[in-house]
């Protein structure tokens, strides 16, 4: 009798999902937008922070979200990250309908908000390694991510609580980069950074778009942000009021 050993099937790690997804992103998203919102409504409690947003973002685009405080920029980023559910309308990110499954896209999203998402009592390196392992990425990639944000060697062995605000932002960015996200969602990425670090962030955003990732970021530093962005979308009162991709500058309402 011949016995054939068959490897037991195992669940794919988030890293493997991300890598396999790269193919579908590379081919599928050439045909469909990375972010596809139609009449999207999102509630904060009972308040409609987004009140019917229409927006399509294609792979490789760098979209700047402009608008006054409370316009709905952060809510839009969190909606696209799958952190808050769409109350109404159609929200599709990386080909996934978020009203059906918000969790599927999360490993493919890099979100840097007003917070850092870092543990104060762990060192910078330990933090980045933890988020790498969590995403199924080799922890050794943490060094490369920290190199990209140009965080000095001596800083990497410090606990996060001992870092300056700017160093924390860099470490947070490294924790995002190590997960190799396909869609970058950045909320005020220049806040708290010195001029050198701001240039670095701009460089990373440009580099991400060049390799096919998509970047959507909100910023109040319009001079700098507009120089980086390939497209500008203005939000006010929870709706898109201006879109530079539209020939008239008015929001694109195409079906």
């Amino acid at each position, binding site marked *: 009798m011949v016995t054939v050993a068959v490897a037991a099937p195992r669940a794919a*790690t*988030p*890293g493997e*999902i991300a890598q396999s997804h790269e193919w579908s992103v590379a081919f599928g998203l050439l045909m469909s937008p990375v972010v596809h919102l139609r009449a999207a409504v999102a509630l904060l409690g009972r308040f409609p922070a987004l009140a019917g947003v229409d927006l399509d973002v294609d792979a490789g685009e760098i979209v700047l979200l402009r608008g006054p405080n409370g316009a709905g920029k952060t809510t839009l980023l969190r909606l696209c*990250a*799958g*952190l808050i559910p769409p109350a109404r309308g159609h929200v599709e990110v990386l080909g996934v309908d978020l009203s059906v499954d918000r969790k599927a896209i*999360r*490993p493919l*999203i890099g*979100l840097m*908000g*007003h*917070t*850092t*998402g*870092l*543990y*104060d*009592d*762990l060192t910078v390196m*330990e933090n980045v390694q*933890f*988020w790498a*392992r*969590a*995403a*199924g990425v080799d922890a050794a990639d943490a060094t490369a991510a920290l190199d990209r944000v140009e965080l000095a060697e001596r800083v990497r062995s410090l*606990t996060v609580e001992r870092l300056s605000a700017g160093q924390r932002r860099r470490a947070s960015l490294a*924790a995002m980069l190590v*997960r190799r996200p396909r869609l970058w969602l950045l909320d005020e990425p220049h806040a708290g950074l010195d001029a050198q670090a701001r240039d670095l962030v701009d460089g990373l955003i440009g580099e991400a778009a060049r390799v096919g990732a998509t970047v959507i970021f909100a910023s109040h530093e319009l001079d700098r942000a507009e120089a980086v962005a390939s497209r500008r979308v203005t939000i006010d009162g929870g709706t898109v009021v201006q879109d530079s991709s539209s020939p008239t500058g008015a929001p694109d309402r195409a079906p």
Partner: protein
Amino acid sequence: MLRDARIVAGKDLRLEARSRVAVNQVLPFVLAVVLLFGFALDADTALLRRATSGLFWVTVLFSAVIIVQRSFAIERHDGINDALRLSGLSAGGIFLGKAASLFCQLVIIELVLGLCVIVFYDVTPSGAGLLIVTTLAATLGIAAAGSLYGPLAAGLRNRDTLLPLLLLPVLAPVLLAASRAFETALGRGVGGGWQWAAMLGIFAVVYLTLGVAVWGPLLEET
């Protein structure tokens, strides 16, 4: 899921080793409680010996509340909750990892507490098998229930005061069963110690299963 649990448990134990909250705050608290019980009962060693089982587990529950509170407070800090949701870690894996970390910390506290009880209450340990099984099963149950109620309380407005109110009533069966099993092991109970230990095992399995099942929605809502 087990891979995720290992990653989370490793991170939590590293955080504890770095912050030393259990060593610098919970262990002195345990020592203080043991001494205060001694003062309250007028250093009557005969009475203390009789009450040892209950006093031991009441102290463990109080310590568990502090550790659970700390364990989930760090996950609420500076956007970590959102980062965890985006991380790709399974909710069940995070729950099991948190429970494993709590279990390890509680076992260390129980070892120190046991030594304190032997020294201060003049207790002679006996029935080692039942003591060990009871301790492991009860601690697993406390860790599982704590990991289930920790994020629930952490998401509420008055979280600091609500956790004991939520958690202690849930852990009342653990207090009862573990105290009875300890009394039997120490030769002061009416028997049935292994049945109480089995009940603790069932409690632990129920809360571990419940935690794996409901931690996903809990992580989303808190």
